[in-house]
């Protein structure tokens, strides 16, 4: 097995190289494209770290959705070529920043390489809790997200809603209520439409599948939701679907559904299982899947809305 380490080293060098290119590239758009490639490479690193769940999330969110967001932004900024950019910092600041960055990176590398052995781990505790009466899930990550650290996960969904509102609030007063601008202004190419017509339904199926198996295998609400979001964006880029009006009641309900259901079930836990955010023993798994289904919906709607940007045009 001497091939695998060689591949690992190659992958590591590639990731670091592309990262350096993103920082060093002279052209804004080139650095954006570099970043998108970097996101995809990173997903491979996660596979090598035995983190398929993270790899899925990173590929869908870090590579795919973020990629569309940044490329769109880069294109719009390049179109505003006359935009005044601040002056680059002087040599002294650059040297200082370089020294600081090197110091931090060096300290971090040293600390990471000298982490204590044997490493402390909550894996045994999680295994015990997941096998016991607690959550009844085969995928420990889903158990952590929806059961042991449910409070974090619920609040993180609220963060997504605040981000959506924050993005909308950047728009003009007069446009409030209208739909965001379409992801592509021009009429899309035939090839794009064909791609979306084939890919979106297949991706939809795969996304639902990933959510469904997430209770016991790699996958779950985040990963499935992110994939559905990506498919929604493919459809929007082909103009097969348009962004909805931001004052649409359906849209608002879809966005709050995940955290709201989570919150209600969590509070109901006080009556059903004597603790806030506890699940009654016999219903843990169906309840968790119930919550996750709404979370998939909220994530699948929130991510494309974040990419689409503020409302645009007139509300009427």
């Amino acid at each position, binding site marked *: 097995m001497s091939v695998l*380490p060689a591949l*690992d*080293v190659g992958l*590591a060098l590639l990731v*670091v190289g592309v*990262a350096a290119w*993103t*920082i060093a590239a002279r052209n*804004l758009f080139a650095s954006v494209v570099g*970043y998108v490639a970097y996101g995809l490479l*990173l997903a491979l*690193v996660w596979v090598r*770290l*035995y*983190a398929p769940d*993270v790899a899925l999330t*990173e590929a869908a*969110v*870090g590579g795919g959705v*973020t990629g569309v*967001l*940044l490329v769109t*932004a880069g294109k719009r*900024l390049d179109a*505003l070529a*006359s*935009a*005044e*950019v*601040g002056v*680059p*910092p002087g040599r002294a*600041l650059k040297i200082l920043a370089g020294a*600081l960055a090197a110091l*931090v*990176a060096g300290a*971090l590398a040293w600390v*990471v*390489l000298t982490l204590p052995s044997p*490493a402390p*781990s*909550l*894996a045994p505790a999680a*295994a015990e809790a997941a096998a016991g009466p607690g959550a009844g899930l085969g995928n*420990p*990550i889903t*158990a*952590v*997200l929806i059961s*042991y*650290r449910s409070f*974090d996960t619920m609040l*993180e969904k609220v*963060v997504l809603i605040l*981000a959506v509102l*924050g*993005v909308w609030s*950047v728009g003009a007063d007069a446009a409030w209520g209208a739909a965001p601008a379409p992801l592509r202004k021009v009429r899309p190419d035939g090839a794009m439409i064909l791609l979306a017509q084939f890919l979106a339904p297949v991706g939809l199926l795969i996304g639902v599948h990933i959510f469904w198996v997430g209770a016991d295998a790699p996958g779950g609400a985040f990963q499935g939701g*992110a994939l559905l979001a990506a498919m929604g964006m493919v459809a929007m880029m082909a103009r097969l679907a348009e962004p909805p009006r931001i004052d649409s009641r359906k849209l608002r309900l879809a966005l709050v559904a995940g955290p709201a259901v989570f919150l209600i079930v969590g509070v109901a836990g006080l009556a059903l299982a004597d603790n806030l955010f506890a699940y009654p023993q016999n219903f843990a798994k169906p309840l968790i899947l119930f919550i996750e289904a709404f979370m998939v919906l909220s994530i699948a709607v929130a991510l494309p809305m*974040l990419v689409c940007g503020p409302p645009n045009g007139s509300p009427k």
Partner: protein
Amino acid sequence: MTPPILAGLVGAALVGFGLYGLICDPHPLRKLLAFNLVGSGVFLVFGIVARRGAAAGFAFDPVPQAMVITGIVVAFAASALAVALILRLAAASGKVTLDPRAWTKRDDGGAR
């Protein structure tokens, strides 16, 4: 070199590059890219910690991995908010600089 050690070095390098870009690059979108590099470096550190915590039949400690999933989504939301601000700023003023000097002059002039 095992994957965790390699990933540790990669993570440290990413944090270093990102930090430098965050401080030195004058363009806010590139600052955002740099922030994302730092972010993925930090997530890698979580990943190493998770991988090293392999125990009890698991190839990884699920707790840090779950945190990374939460973190990736939050980082994306932050990027989206920043992009919205940058685009609006560029469209409204034709400037995409954060230099305070570019913004304070005009308002103070009328004070005296």
